[in-house]
């Protein structure tokens, strides 16, 4: 009677749950189906604790002992470790020694705590078949300094707390765990199954037939003086210019996250004793791309003079030395920036552009970045922006950035991610379209600005903005313009004489008197008009009260003489042709005449120069 009483409500409850409950059962069924029949035949775990990171690698031989084919398997992480996870990756060890990485998707497993990932196999595993899988995980901030505060003379001890076994949803037949430490000095370690310790390693196992989800606390307390530096935040700004340059700038907050320095800092000890402040960080190396140029390393108060740059074949190495050594708990802040040629990172097909650049770059070996902000500044006018990230990353609202000659702003993509390690140094690809005409916008803007500037200057110079008249300046300008005219006229007149000479020479050969007479007539006529013009100008100069009028008068006088000479030479030529003079006599007289003319012309020239 009593048994029946208990059973009945349960049944009713199950009926009442209806459809929802059915779905839940189905889900559970599916998850267990995945696990069904899979067994970890042989597991080799390696815990690398030689740096400030905990890198746990497990090589697993999976066997399908079930009846049906299996298309995927589940990876599990302990609840204590899960928050520290920075990176997880799984790969299948192929027969030809070629690893094939697997895609991981986070899932949950009913009734179990921790973090779970489902890995999809490239080809399903037949019943009875075996597979070798390598799982790589990196945890940050897992090594806790103990004691938490040390003096400058003390060494840094840290504690690692983990699991002796592989945390797995499948039973494990056999497994070994090998722990690599940073030094020989080990304060204590858990002694499950009599581990063997040699130099810097502790080896556990083999453990046989471990049930699923087994946990057994492992604790190792050892000396670790490797640099415990953490990038508490980094802002990486990548500014793309289509004029051939990509500017990269990283603003970095650095902190020593090892044991805090207790008591005084003694520079004397630090300089004299090599093991003083052994856990402190003096410098580290940052590796930049090989094409990095114009590298700068500075902070809020200026350039940091303590750094070295080394250009190698495949990279540029910067030895970053903070202004002061970093002891436990100390922090610093700096900016490093450089330029890259865009042809190595920017690809285009017509108006379609693709930028392929590292989302995060190397700062120091075994780096840990607590918080990353990436700002990608694309050129003004970039549209249809699409981003392919190598791993999920949080995108924030896009921003606009204004710099030199920008009008409507450059689009800025902002993305953030927490807890990154070296494995995250991967490329991001940004696709966008950009109209090439827009390249001309900025040069045109500059041209336009200069145009406006020159134009205003021209206007300002040409127009008279003075409110008072300056008669002297006006007279000067008038005189200048008149003398200019005089100059051209006088030169023209001198040209006439040269022309006349040619006419005379021709006459001497052809003996054509008609041509000579007409030439003489034109000379007379043109000379009269020019002389009249010059006299008119001279009169105007005189009216302006300029002393240049006298000089012009002098020119006129000289010119009269000159003209006489020209006429004389003309007559001489006529007489020669008529046979009235001998050739020798003519040559003599011609010489004296041209000599006189030369002198007159040079005098006129010097007068003109003085004008």
């Amino acid at each position: 009677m009593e048994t029946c009483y208990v059973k009945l409500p349960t049944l009713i409850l199950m009926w009442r749950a209806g459809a929802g409950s059915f779905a839940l059962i189905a889900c559970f069924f599916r998850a267990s189906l995945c696990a069904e029949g899979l067994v970890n035949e042989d597991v080799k775990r390696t815990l690398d604790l030689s740096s400030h990171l905990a890198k746990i690698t497990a090589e697993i031989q999976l066997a399908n002992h079930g009846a049906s084919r299996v298309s995927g398997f589940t990876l599990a992480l302990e609840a204590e470790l899960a928050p520290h996870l920075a990176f997880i990756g799984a790969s299948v060890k192929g027969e030809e020694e070629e690893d094939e990485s697997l895609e991981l998707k986070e899932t949950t497993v009913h009734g179990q705590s921790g973090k779970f990932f489902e890995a999809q196999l490239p080809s399903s595993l037949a019943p009875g078949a075996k597979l070798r899988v390598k799982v790589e995980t990196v945890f940050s901030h897992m090594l806790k300094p103990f004691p938490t505060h040390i003096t400058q003379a003390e060494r840094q001890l840290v504690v690692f707390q983990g699991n002796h076994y592989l945390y797995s949803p499948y039973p494990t037949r056999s497994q070994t765990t090998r722990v690599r430490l940073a030094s020989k000095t080990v304060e204590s370690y858990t002694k499950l199954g009599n581990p063997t310790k040699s130099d810097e390693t502790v080896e556990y196992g083999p453990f046989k037939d471990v049930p699923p989800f087994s946990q057994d606390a492992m604790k190792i307390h050892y000396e670790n003086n490797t640099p415990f530096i953490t990038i508490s935040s980094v802002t990486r700004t990548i500014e793309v210019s289509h004029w051939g340059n990509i500017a990269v700038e990283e603003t970095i907050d650095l902190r020593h996250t090892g044991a805090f320095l207790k008591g005084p800092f003694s520079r004397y000890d630090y300089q004299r004793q090599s093991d003083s402040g052994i856990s402190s960080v003096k410098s580290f190396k940052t590796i930049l791309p090989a094409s990095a140029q114009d590298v700068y390393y500075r902070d809020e108060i200026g350039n940091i003079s303590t750094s070295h740059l080394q250009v190698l074949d495949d990279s540029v190495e910067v030895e970053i030395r903070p202004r002061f050594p970093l002891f436990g708990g100390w922090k610093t802040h700096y900016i490093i920036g450089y330029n890259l040629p865009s042809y190595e990172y920017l690809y285009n097909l017509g108006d379609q552009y693709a930028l392929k650049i590292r989302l995060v770059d190397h700062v120091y070996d075994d780096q840990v970045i607590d918080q990353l902000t990436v700002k990608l500044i694309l050129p003004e006018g970039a549209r249809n922006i699409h981003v392919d990230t190598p791993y999920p990353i949080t995108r924030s609202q896009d921003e606009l950035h204004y710099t030199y000659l920008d009008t409507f702003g450059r689009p800025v993509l902002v993305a953030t991610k927490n807890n990154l390690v070296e494995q995250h140094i991967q490329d991001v690809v940004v696709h966008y379209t950009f109209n090439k005409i827009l390249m001309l916008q900025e040069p045109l803007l500059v041209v336009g600005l200069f145009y406006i500037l020159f134009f205003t200057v021209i206007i300002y110079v040409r127009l008279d903005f003075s409110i008072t008249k300056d008669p002297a300046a006006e007279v000067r300008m008038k005189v200048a313009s008149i003398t200019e005219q005089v100059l051209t006229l006088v030169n023209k007149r001198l040209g006439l004489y040269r022309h006349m000479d040619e006419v005379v020479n021709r006459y001497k050969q052809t003996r054509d008197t008609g041509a000579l007479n007409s030439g003489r007539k034109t000379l007379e006529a043109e000379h009269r008009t020019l002389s009249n013009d010059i006299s008119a100008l001279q009169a105007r100069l005189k009216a302006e009260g300029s002393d240049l009028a006298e000089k012009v008068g002098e020119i006129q006088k000289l010119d009269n003489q000159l003209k006489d000479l020209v006429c004389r030479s003309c007559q001489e030529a006529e007489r020669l042709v008529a046979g009235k003079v001998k050739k020798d006599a003519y040559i003599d007289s011609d010489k004296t005449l041209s000599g006189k003319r030369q002198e007159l012309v040079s005098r006129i020239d010097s007068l003109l120069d003085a004008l």
Partner: protein
Amino acid sequence: TRSCLLCVKMTKLGFLRLSYEKQDTLLKLLILSMAAHPNTCLNELFLVGSYFNYRTTRFLTEEGFYKFHNWFDDRAWYPLGRIIGGTIYPGLMITSAALYHVLHFFHITIDIRNVCVFLAPLFSSFTAIVTYHFTKELKDAGAGLLAAAMIAVVPGYISRSVAGSYDNEGTILSQRYVVYSNAFKKASIGKVLEFVKYQIETYTLLFKSLVLFLYWLMLGKISPWTGRFYSLLDPSYAKNNIPIIASVSEHQPTTWSSYYFDLQLLVFMFPVGLYYCFNNLSDATIFIIMYGVTSMYFSAVMVRLMLVLAPVMCILSGIGVSQVLTTYMKNLDVSRPDKKSKKQQDSTYPIKNEVASGMILVMAFFLITYTFHSTWVTSEAYSSPSIVLSARGGDGSRIIFDDFREAYYWLRHNTPEDAKVMSWWDYGYQITAMANRTILVDNNTWNNTHISRVGQAMASTEEKAYEIMRELDVSYVLVIFGGLTGYSSDDINKFLWMVRIGGSTDTGRHIKEHDYYTPTGEFRVDREGSPVLLNCLMYKMCYYRFGQVYTEAKRPPGYDRVRNAEIGNKDFELDVLEEAYTTEHWLVRIYKVKDLDNRGLSRT
């Protein structure tokens, strides 16, 4: 003068077929733009005052004018604070902030820091242009061009106007000259010289009121408030009465060598210019004579007033050189060597042409050496930020001591936000700007008693000093120590001033300068030194653990390379302080003031 010659040459060569006026303008523009080209190189702030001005400018641009106006700075003069908005001359900050906003309006995204760094060179180039106009009003364009070219390179002015010196002094000159030259321009057009009359009247008024003021002072009716001002009138005033003013290196009387170092040729051409001005007395020249002579007097009182002297030196020398050149350029017979003219030579002036060309060559030589000297001085003495020291290593390589910034940056990032730093006032502005921490005293030495209190702490024994430091709520103490590197302007060498200033107020009556000397009246840090000195806080902070350091070969440990002596007190421990940080070359040492012991036991 020079330009005329050049013009003639250029037309002869057929370079330019412009009218004479246009050529003149072009040449003037060329020379002026060369003179006005800003001489810049680095983008670091150089001088101590610049840091404060930069900090206030940044505040103004970030927070806006009204917040700036109401700004009460609790970072300085702890626990008094300083009302910055009301106690500074905001012209400089407003100018750069306005420039910054205008540039940003046009999307020229220049950092405010760069605006500050390049403001001084910008204004110095304005000064060159304005000097040209000013001198042109006094004499002619030739003299103006010479003066502009001279002021462009004169070290005395460059020292205050290189990129990175961000101070009122560097920028104010150009503005002042704009006023002067405008006034003279008006005057030269023909209006009455009211301006200068007005100026002279103000001067006389000022003088009268001064006499009255001094008279009152003697009666003891007005308390002294601007000691710097008195020391201008009476150079010995500060030395006798206010040690704080006398202690500043910039307030020391100027030596002859520094005149030559900063002005070179100008020192000799200045009287020539004065002579010319006396020969051609007009209101304008009288003004420049007065200006020149009074600046000469003031610059002799304090080194820092060299800045006032340098431009007027340039103007007067420009006039002088130009006068010499025009005189002899006229005698220079540039026409073709004609046999006739030689016969007609003046019998009273036998080798006129040779003398003229010789004079011009000598002048040209002087001018060239002047430019070389100026470049050398500028690159040697005024181009490196005072915050970075450098020395030559044994192998001739350059060693940089960047210890100041190392220490300040350490303070900025590794001390609590509200930490109070005690140091001698010289480093106050730098600490607030670079370390962003609260300080007790800074370069704005307005409160004598407060500085005196810090001096007392430095000059007392640890026990006494701890009381003062607790009273002032000090968490860190910073000292500059050059004993390891040989940096001579460190705190031990300044220490006597701390003693004097510390002893100059009531609370420090027990501090007597002679206690810190040996019986023979020497200031020594070695075994012979006075025990009071060897046990005071400053001594202990500088030499803590220094007794173990070997600084030079064949010398005992603890050999001070500045004082050239083995220190007298070697093995001691600090009771109330602990070493918090010492920079790489021991230039800056920072100590943390220990908390009170539990149960109120005294520390010592």
